């Protein structure tokens, strides 16, 4: 399995179900060999986009390309895709081996080559010797790996995965995440992975596209999205965040100043795109950027301390009703109920547009389209 798969391109792809716009016109380029995760809450359009890539759903507008091939009109069986379903969709009346060999038999492969390839795929997912078992004899994690082997054995141009870890318990999920990452490194196949779980996205992805209300909100590497979220939605969806909401009072190319609602205080930080003075905005400070500054800084009451082993999680409350999370390496315990000071380095602060208090994206887009 040396080929790395093909790139996948979506050009102006959208999908409506009656009056419901499940996916707004979307452009997306997945590079050959890349592991791209579509991350978003349910109803954000991520599964719609995946099903359009697979051919299970026809787009209302736009084209889908695999490599240089326009596959928009092709049925799934002519697309050479590997799909892993949330329910695994293994055939219960076939053995493990026959499940894995299914796609090879559909391609009319001869017995010898078929056996060699299917065995190699089972070995890849560490299920050597399980070929003769019935599906119902396998655990959930093993079934998941059979589904993966069945999708990979046909050497697909793209591997598509629809919340494949949703049915596993937490501990197993973490194990399988690492397994999928190992497999991706080994086979190097273009992968589009759908999940609503940010941890899965962070562990496995080369790039993450965060989706919301039928559109890609922001796309980039995990670190980029975590450090430079474009708006409040992305900041809240990926990682834990402290958001102090207010009104933008000053803006100069790089930096911005925010007047916080309910507190007599301005906060400076790096400016995200799309800010304008006088509009709602929010200051993002990640929990690890909050410093304890006894005597100086912003007055905060320590509500709760949680010991997490190497880390201590502190929950603080500011005047004006703001809750602030702080994470620091565990040293001395701090007494709950005490009032202390907190501050932060302005270089760790992002000032983001807070459009959640305005109209939703989908409504804006609908309006825009009507004008066109």
């Amino acid at each position, binding site marked *: 399995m040396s080929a790395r798969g093909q790139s996948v391109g979506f050009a102006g792809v959208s999908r409506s179900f009656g009056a419901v716009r499940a996916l707004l016109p979307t452009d997306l380029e997945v590079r050959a060999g890349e592991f791209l995760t579509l991350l978003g809450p349910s109803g954000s359009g991520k599964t719609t986009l995946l099903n359009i890539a697979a051919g299970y759903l026809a787009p209302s507008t736009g084209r889908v390309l695999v490599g240089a091939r326009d596959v928009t009109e092709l049925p799934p069986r002519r697309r050479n895709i590997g799909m892993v379903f949330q329910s695994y*969709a293994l*055939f219960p009346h076939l053995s493990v081996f026959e499940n894995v060999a299914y796609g090879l038999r559909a391609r009319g492969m001869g017995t010898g080559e078929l056996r060699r390839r299917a065995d190699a795929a089972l070995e890849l997912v560490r299920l050597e010797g399980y070929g003769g078992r019935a599906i119902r004899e396998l655990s959930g994690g093993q079934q998941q790996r059979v589904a993966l082997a069945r999708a990979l054995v046909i050497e697909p141009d793209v591997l598509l995965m629809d919340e494949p870890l949703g049915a596993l318990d937490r501990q197993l999920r973490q194990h399988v995440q690492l397994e999928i990452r190992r497999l991706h490194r080994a086979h190097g196949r273009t992968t589009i992975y759908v999940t609503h779980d940010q941890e899965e996205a962070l562990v496995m992805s080369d790039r993450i596209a965060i989706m919301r209300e039928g559109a890609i909100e922001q796309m980039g590497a995990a670190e980029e999205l975590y450090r430079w979220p474009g708006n409040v939605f992305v900041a809240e969806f990926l990682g834990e965040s402290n958001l102090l909401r207010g009104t933008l009072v000053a803006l100069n190319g790089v930096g911005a100043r925010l007047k916080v609602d309910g507190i007599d205080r301005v906060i400076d930080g790096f400016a995200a795109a799309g800010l304008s003075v006088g509009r709602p905005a929010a200051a993002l400070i990640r929990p690890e950027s909050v410093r304890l500054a006894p005597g100086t800084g912003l007055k905060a009451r320590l509500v709760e301390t949680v010991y997490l082993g190497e880390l201590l999680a502190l929950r603080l409350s500011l005047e004006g009703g703001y809750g602030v999370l702080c994470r620091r390496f565990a040293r001395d315990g701090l007494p709950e109920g005490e009032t202390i000071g907190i501050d932060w380095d302005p270089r760790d602060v992002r000032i983001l547009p807070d459009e959640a208090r305005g109209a939703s994206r989908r409504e804006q887009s609908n309006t825009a389209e009507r004008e066109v």
Partner: protein
Amino acid sequence: MPARGLGFRLAVHGAGSLVLGFLLLPIFAVVPASLNQGSFIRLPPEAWSTRWYARFFADPEWLTTLLTSFEVAAIATAVSAAFGTAAALGLARTGGRLRAILTGLILAPMIVPVIVTAVALYYVGRYWGMTGTVAGLAMAHVLMCMPFVVLNVGVSLRALDPSWIRAAEGLGASPARVFATVTLPTILPGLFGGAVFSIITSFDEVVLSIFVAGVQAKTLPVKMWEVVRLEFTPVLSVASTLLVALTIVLFVLFRLAAARAQAAGAGR
């Protein structure tokens, strides 16, 4: 449930056995009657004998009707299985009111009084020249048999996860291959059950057969009906016993197949 006294259990089981006996024993009365040596049907038999079985299998007319019954049942079941499966698959893809209307139409022959269907088929069959032929009778039986296939296949279709179909398509299988490797294995228990009910129904059907069959396509039940009216002979009990035996064998086969399918599907 709290443990009941022995007396209570005896009473319940006793009453249940009585009811079952009342329902079933008259049917099995034909078995000793067929083994009676005398010329009159008498219970219990005065002396045991298999002479009426010999008479049955020596009589070309009994054998011909038995053969015709097998022929008609085979054709009716094959046609019902093919069209009933197609109908069940189609219904599963149809939604809302249309599905309710179509289901009602397909099941109507089970509900409409058989005598009405029989008279109607008599006229239509005469018009098309299909009365008195094995093929024509088999087509009439399809009306009664197909609902069993549609119902049974419909039930087993509910076990079919739509994502299996999508997975098979994604793996490169053509529609025909998807049907042969995914759909058919899943609905096989239902198809088998529908076929068994279909054979039993066709074998047992008298009213339609009398109207449509005429003399050329006389089935075993029709012959029995004639015999009851003309000459009352213990050979009738032999034919009845054979019918009961066939029904039991088919039904046991069906239960075994269903149990196997359930075991295969368990723990999915």
